[in-house]
């Protein structure tokens, strides 16, 4: 039917041009994603993807579960597929094209199933198709019943060769798909989105694609770069940096959700992209059914990443004790989870003030919510002459009438002022 004829039938028809290169790119991305199911994937343009799954049957717990996994995964990515299973690649492709979803595992059943297929499935050149149709051949089975040498003489050797490949009488090697070294994917949104949280849905599809890509190569991504493209404004970029490489789509989606809550869009988003270049080997995990889902270390990292993504990297710290006399230098912030050092001195307060606080005095008495009484133990700390930050102080434990305990010191230099430095909480 011509376009004008179609418009004549339906005035509201909208016509979109077919983008062959986009189709090809999509097929390649799906091939990279499908690598998680088998190492042997072969995209067959325009619309077929061949997976050699014999070797993966056991790993995925049988053909039915494998098929269900592929079907569900594709549905989550937003694709609908017809899954046909056969002992030969060509046979499977023809069966899928014919519209069925058979699961055929032996050769005899394959002959029966292929015989029933209409001739159009072979996708023969028009002349050959017409010649066969003129001979009264309607189905593949009719073709197989014809004498082989006669068929070759009339229609050339190619037809028989294809039939033999489909039936497994001839080898049919396929070039394996080689995934690109880095991940790059884009998704054109069906309608522009102006709500950042609504973007989670299309972006999740990209994350699922990334997850399949990473799993197939036993890699994890450590840095994800999202691009939110607008029609005029400059692209909004989101970067997720992870503590540990991950290929877990669920975890990545949760991180992204936190990040999206803070995004302010200058304009509606028309297209989203995801690139991940920092790929690292992911920690291998045995497929043990009874093993806990995540190791304790992984679980700790997951929380860390969630907190860091929402609050910022500088809002999450670990602690380290440093062997140093000066109290304000006897500790420092570290990355969470790093070994924390050893304590050298006892009798230290649990809270330290960021800066010593000068204490008020009243008639020779120190005042902090009442008159402070000092303990009799004095600890002299005199140190740091070598770096110009030297201190000379006498530290005491002090208590006010309301029962609170403090760590106070008196400067041994200039003026002898008293300061509050910590709280024994």
């Amino acid at each position, binding site marked *: 039917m011509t376009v004008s004829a179609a418009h004549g039938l339906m005035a509201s028809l909208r016509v979109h041009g077919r983008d062959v290169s986009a189709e090809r790119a999509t097929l390649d991305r799906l091939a990279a994603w499908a690598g998680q199911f088998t190492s042997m994937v072969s995209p067959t343009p325009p619309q077929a993807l061949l997976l050699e799954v014999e070797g993966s049957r056991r790993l995925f717990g049988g053909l039915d579960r494998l098929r269900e996994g592929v079907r569900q995964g594709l549905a989550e990515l937003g694709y609908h597929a017809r899954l046909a299973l056969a002992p030969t690649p060509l046979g499977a492709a023809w069966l899928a094209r014919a519209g069925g979803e058979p699961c055929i595992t032996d050769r005899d059943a394959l002959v029966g199933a292929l015989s029933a297929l209409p001739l159009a499935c072979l996708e023969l050149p028009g002349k050959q198709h017409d010649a066969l149709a003129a001979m009264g051949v309607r189905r593949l089975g009719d073709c197989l019943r014809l004498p082989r040498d006669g068929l070759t003489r009339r229609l050339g050797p190619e037809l028989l060769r294809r039939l033999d490949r489909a039936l497994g009488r001839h080898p049919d090697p396929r070039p394996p798909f080689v995934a690109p070294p880095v991940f790059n994917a884009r998704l054109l949104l069906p309608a522009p989105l102006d709500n950042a949280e609504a973007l989670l849905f299309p972006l999740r599809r990209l994350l699922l694609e990334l997850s399949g890509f990473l799993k197939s190569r036993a890699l994890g991504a450590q840095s994800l770069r999202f691009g939110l493209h607008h029609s005029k404004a400059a692209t909004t970029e989101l970067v997720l940096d992870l503590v540990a490489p991950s290929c877990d789509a669920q975890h990545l989606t949760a991180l992204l959700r936190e990040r999206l809550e803070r995004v302010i869009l200058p304009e509606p988003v028309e297209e989203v992209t995801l690139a991940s270049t920092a790929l690292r080997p992911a920690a291998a995990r045995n497929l043990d059914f009874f093993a806990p889902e995540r190791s304790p270390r992984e679980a*700790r990292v997951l929380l*860390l990443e969630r907190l860091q993504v929402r*609050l910022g990297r500088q809002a999450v710290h670990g602690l380290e004790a440093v062997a140093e006399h000066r109290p304000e230098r006897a500790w420092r912030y570290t990355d*969470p989870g790093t070994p924390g050092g050893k304590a050298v001195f006892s009798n230290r307060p649990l809270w330290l003030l960021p800066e010593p606080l000068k204490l008020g005095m009243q008639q020779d008495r120190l005042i902090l919510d009442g008159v402070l009484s000092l303990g009799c133990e004095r600890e002299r700390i005199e140190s740091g002459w070598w770096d110009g930050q030297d201190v000379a102080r006498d530290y005491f434990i002090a208590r006010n009438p*309301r029962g*609170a305990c403090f760590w106070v010191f008196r400067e041994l230099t200039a003026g002898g002022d008293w300061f509050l430095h910590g709280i*024994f*909480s």
Partner: protein
Amino acid sequence: MSLQDLMQRADLWRGDTAPPFAASLPTGFPALDAVLPGGGWPQRALTEILLPHEGIGELRLLLPALARLSRGDRWLALVAPPHIPYAPALASAGVELSRVLLVHPRASGDGLWAVEQSLRAGSCAAVLAWPATLDSRALRRLQLAAEAGGSWGVLFGHERLAASSSPAALRLRLAPRASGLDIHILKRRGGWPAGPVSLEVDHALAMPAPAASGDRGIYPRQPSA
């Protein structure tokens, strides 16, 4: 609504399946363990600690339990602590510093979020927080998060909150004593309010005696210049 639907609800309390004394953590103070249900801090639940002002031993009360938890494989999270948690003091109390996680949210709404996430994540053994205010809806969320994540949530608050109700499994009010703490149990699961229990929480420290006589203190002296 059918019975089946009711059974699915998380907020339905079922007497036959909720062992109130399960999984508790010894406090390190036998006198306190004796009055707490299950003989220790309630795990998978919120504990509220109310006090008149800081510096009376409220953290030292938790230290033995925190030190023990830090030797496990989960975080000890401190969300928005009021001062710097001093690493040398924590380490000398036996706390494994590599398990300490400090979270400093800047926006106020993020504090509650961080506490809830940490409780729910399942990778925090304990979550300590110093919320300025908490309504009972927020507290209920945190209580559910603590149950879901199997985490011990500790909230410090001012003692004026003692009058309001709270879904926390354990509520304590602390009062300083001459040497140590009086602990009043305002609420405990599976028991009546009780108290006070008197504890010596600072045996390791040489604390000054309270200023009873008033004029005994010879410090501070002005430096004899």
